[in-house]
């Protein structure tokens, strides 16, 4: 059923934060694989280490020990610039707080990753319009981020995460700041993307949101406590 070659392979991943003399074990010996086309929800109470794990998967943070392979490439061995390229081309990251550039139009926000990728400026706008259309915002292209509602901002952020055609989408509580009616809109987009064959990993603590995923991983105290496909136990 699944492709034998995983997009993500995590082996014995551990992250320890040191703050003065206090050590915090955020992620503890976590191992799992994600295969192309999967829609994985990571659940768990706050402080369970899911956000830290997500940052490591997004190449925004490095593990203390363990190995993280993205498309068979060991991310831990890459230079700072190579990591920047990974973040730019292979990962689409969607933040809980949207993180759009303030006072900048939706169109320009969506075009930004393409500027860092060195895509021809004339093609950028075409691609950005396409993805803004996909998230249903083709009538808001010239609105600046502060003129958009939370749900609309998150849809701009989703469009932005897609423009460089990444191999995986990482969403860190994408509906956490959004009213439930608009959250449903967001989830519809995620389901559409999943249906189109995109691989998605999403953090959430709401079972209502997690039920849209095809696989649910639950974490507690930095460890994976369950990992099953929605509807049936993972073999």
């Amino acid at each position, binding site marked *: 059923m699944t492709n034998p070659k995983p997009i993500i392979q995590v082996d014995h991943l551990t992250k320890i934060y040191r703050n003065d003399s206090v050590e915090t074990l955020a992620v503890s010996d976590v191992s799992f694989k994600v295969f192309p086309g999967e829609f994985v929800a990571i659940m768990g109470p706050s402080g369970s280490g899911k956000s830290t794990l997500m940052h490591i998967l997004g190449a925004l943070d490095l593990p203390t020990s363990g190995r993280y392979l993205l498309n068979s490439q060991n991310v831990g061995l890459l230079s700072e610039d190579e990591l920047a390229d990974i*973040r730019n081309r292979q990962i689409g990251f969607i933040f809980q707080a949207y993180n759009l550039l303030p006072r900048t139009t939706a169109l320009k926000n969506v075009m930004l990753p393409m500027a*860092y990728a060195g895509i021809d400026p004339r093609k950028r706008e075409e691609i950005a319009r396409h993805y803004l259309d996909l998230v249903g915002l083709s009538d808001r292209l010239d609105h600046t981020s502060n003129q958009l509602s939370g749900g609309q901002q998150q849809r701009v952020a989703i469009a932005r995460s897609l423009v460089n055609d990444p191999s995986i989408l990482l969403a860190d509580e994408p509906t956490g700041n959004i009213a439930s009616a608009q959250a449903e809109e967001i989830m519809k987009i995620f389901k559409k993307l999943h249906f189109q064959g995109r691989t998605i990993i999403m953090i959430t603590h709401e079972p209502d949101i997690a039920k849209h995923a095809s696989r649910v991983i639950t974490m507690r105290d930095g460890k994976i406590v369950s990992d099953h496909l929605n509807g049936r136990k993972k073999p």
Partner: protein
Amino acid sequence: MKLWEIIIESFGTLGLNKLRTGLAVLGIIIGIGSVITLISIGQGSQQAVTSQIQSLGANLLTVMPGSSRSGSVRQAFGSNTTLTLEDAQAIKTSPQITTINHVSPELSRRSQVIAGKNNTNTQIYGVYPEYAIVHKISLSSGNFISQGDVQGLTKVAVLGPQVVVDLFGEGANPVGQTIRINKQSFRIIGVTQSKGGTGFNNQDDVIFVPLSTAQKQLFGVDYLSSIAIEAKSPEVMTDAQNEIGYFLLDRHKISDPASADFMIMSQNDILNTASQVTGTFTTLLSGIAAISLLVGGIGIMNIMLVTVTERTREIGLRKALGAKRQTIVTQFLVESVILTLIGGIIGMLIGIVASLLLSKLLNLPSVISLFSVILAVGVSGVIGIIFGWYPAQRAARLQPIEALRYE
């Protein structure tokens, strides 16, 4: 991301906070503006002094008596009385000296001058007619001292325009009237044209009388205070200096040139000294202006550091979206260079206007040189890089996840 894209984006970013951008730029405007103004006034004065000295006569050599000794005490330069009219005539007629045109023996003293109720203290020059040729004197009315005046010991005087103003008032023509120098009456036969001099060596604040009259009637001396000699061309100045030097050593029976009782100065020597003085003046002024430029630069750095702190989250986001360290460094450097370059260009324009206004209002000469314009723009760009460097590095060093978490 290409440089021009970063530049366009930076203009947009700077435009978002116009007041802050304006204040940061203001520091550079003041700095560059004052540098340009002070340099152009400094260079203007330098050029004015140079052309003033040159207007005293081109190809000019001046022989002056050396300093005399009384006992072992060396007296003031020029205090010797060893230079005589005979020396001047011998120089003029000597077949050994082939590189000169005219010889002008001169005796100058300060004296009180009275005309009616007015009086002034001015420099009296006892001269030959050659003085007018060698020093390029032209007359606005009347005649200069003639050979006949010198031979006849006549009591006639030619006045500089400043003396006319002092004694007779603005616009008066005193030719034909009399003045009293040292209690003796002199008839005014001419007024010279203004040479626009200033300071202690004002070529307009002088009175010319025949040399013989000055020596015998006025001051009772038989020596000269200087002999001005015009060389045939600027190229033979050194030759002329040597020929005259050896001739006078021979005439004064001095074998060691080090103990010569006279000195020969060329126009160039005087020019060099004068431009050294005005050069120091210019440097000093620019130094003061440079300090304000430095302060402006620190202002830019301050603003850029505030910007980096304020935009920490934005930097984190850009890195999360794939911006490389170099791209972030370039972005912040470009912003600070734009600030300083805009400041530099506006400051340059204001500096040019200010130096033109100052030279009009204060009657100071000013020269706006291409050098100072290039300097201003170049320096402001460099200041942008120097003071933008540290904030840019700080921005680029931020770890994406920590920057994103920053509140």
